[in-house]
């Protein structure tokens, strides 16, 4: 199934269909992850691959193609399929050859299971006392990695902001000062359904955020789900309505605040006598309680940062859409 959808994205020429197929592909791979006992990963992939990614791609499509003309490519392309096909076949064959040295699927004695994993599995119950090992590894044992990842997300958010957030006409005006375009506003059914769904989505986001210690979930997934609620609201009610609730500046501040919360938690641990991001130091009498507090704060920081970045990215794309009609008008004059 996965291969079928992946191949479909090669052969379909209509970009809209390709993006839809890609969404299906992501949803299928989320199911695949669940099958491989990775519920956390499946949750993330479902929220992102099948939710946010197609929305962003459709946004790009809408921005880059004013009319929906299918493939205006009449002249001969310089891209012939033969050479890439040969390259791909050779690389694939080499990789297949390499798999013969790999440990078999599901082998409990494979090298990847014999180094640090046993410690995480056996000790995390006493050291951190959180049932979900993925959360404890993510936020505590591998806190540095995760901090780095959060920084990457933050940087990408800034990058999108720098590329799309400001108009290039040099006037310094920002995109949200322009008129509103919400073509969906008149659809009553959509409106009512969205009104029912949005509080539930927000509630679920909070559940995923704060129950991440016990069940699959955590800051990354919660942030994405939280952002989804706002994206849905934007699509239904338009950008201006959203900006009445949250100012864009506020989103940018929260973006930074999330990263800061993570970083400062580490610093506080340092000031209280531990190493950086060593949550044991947060509570000298009860290190496990310190771990719980540290993980909660760090996950909160991750969630806030991810939610803010996703919202800011989407709003930037949506904001560009407002501007383009004016462009075409100017071009026509």
């Amino acid at each position, binding site marked *: 199934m*996965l*291969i079928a959808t*992946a*191949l479909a*994205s*090669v052969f379909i020429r209509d970009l809209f269909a*390709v993006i839809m197929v890609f969404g299906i*592909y992501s949803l299928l*791979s989320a199911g695949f992850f669940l099958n*491989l*006992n990775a519920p*956390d*990963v499946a949750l*993330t992939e479902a929220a*992102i691959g099948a939710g946010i*990614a197609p929305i*962003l*791609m459709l946004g790009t*499509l809408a921005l*880059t193609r004013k009319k929906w003309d299918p493939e205006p*490519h009449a002249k001969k*392309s*310089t*891209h012939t399929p033969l050479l890439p096909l040969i390259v*791909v076949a050779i690389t*694939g064959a080499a*990789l*297949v050859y390499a*798999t*013969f040295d790999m440990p*078999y*699927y*599901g082998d*409990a004695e*494979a090298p*990847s*299971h014999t180094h*640090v*994993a046993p410690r*995480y*599995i056996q000790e995390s*119950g006493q050291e951190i006392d959180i049932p*979900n*090992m*993925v959360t404890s590894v*993510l936020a505590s044992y*591998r806190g540095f*990695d*995760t901090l780095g990842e959060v920084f*990457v*997300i933050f940087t*990408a958010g800034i*990058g*999108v902001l720098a590329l799309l957030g400001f108009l*290039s006409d040099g006037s310094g005006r920002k995109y949200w000062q322009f008129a509103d375009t919400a073509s969906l506003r008149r659809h009553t059914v959509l409106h009512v359904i969205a009104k029912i769904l949005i509080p539930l989505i927000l509630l679920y986001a909070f559940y995923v955020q704060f129950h991440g210690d*016990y069940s699959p979930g955590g800051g*990354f997934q919660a942030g*994405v789900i939280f952002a989804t609620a706002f994206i849905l609201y934007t699509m239904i009610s338009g950008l201006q309505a959203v900006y009445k609730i949250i100012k864009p500046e506020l989103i940018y501040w929260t973006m930074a605040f999330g990263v800061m919360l993570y970083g400062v938690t580490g610093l506080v641990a340092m000031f209280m006598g531990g190493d950086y991001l060593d949550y044991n130091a947060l509570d000298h009498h009860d290190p496990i309680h310190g771990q719980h507090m540290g993980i909660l704060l760090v996950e909160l920081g991750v969630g806030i940062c991810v939610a803010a970045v996703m919202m800011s*990215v989407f709003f930037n794309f949506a904001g*560009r859409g407002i501007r383009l009609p004016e462009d075409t008008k100017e071009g026509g004059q």
Partner: protein
Amino acid sequence: MSVVLGLFNYWIVIALMMTGFYLVIATSNLIKKIIGLNIFQTSVFILYISIAKVKGGAAPILEEGTELYANPLPHVLILTAIVVGIATTALGLALIVRIKEAYGSIEEDDIREKGGTT
């Protein structure tokens, strides 16, 4: 037979990876290239999660009476990688939007033609 079953997941991964790779190098449309990159990326995710799987193991959430768990470490790596992936994808898409504004096209051939004249 056991060779086929034991390595089947890796071969799926390679097939997906090569599909993504082909999309990246063979298509001229930039959005399709990004989709190709995403398929490539997902194939790497599947590779990691396949490695993490332990036959008969449970999901890595501590429970009474369960001894065998899947390896939590690759799960953590991939979970964060997915979110980072979407952030970088968004950056790529933003670049595409700007390229369209600057060159009026998202087809690589057209862009190359215009770049040559300036």
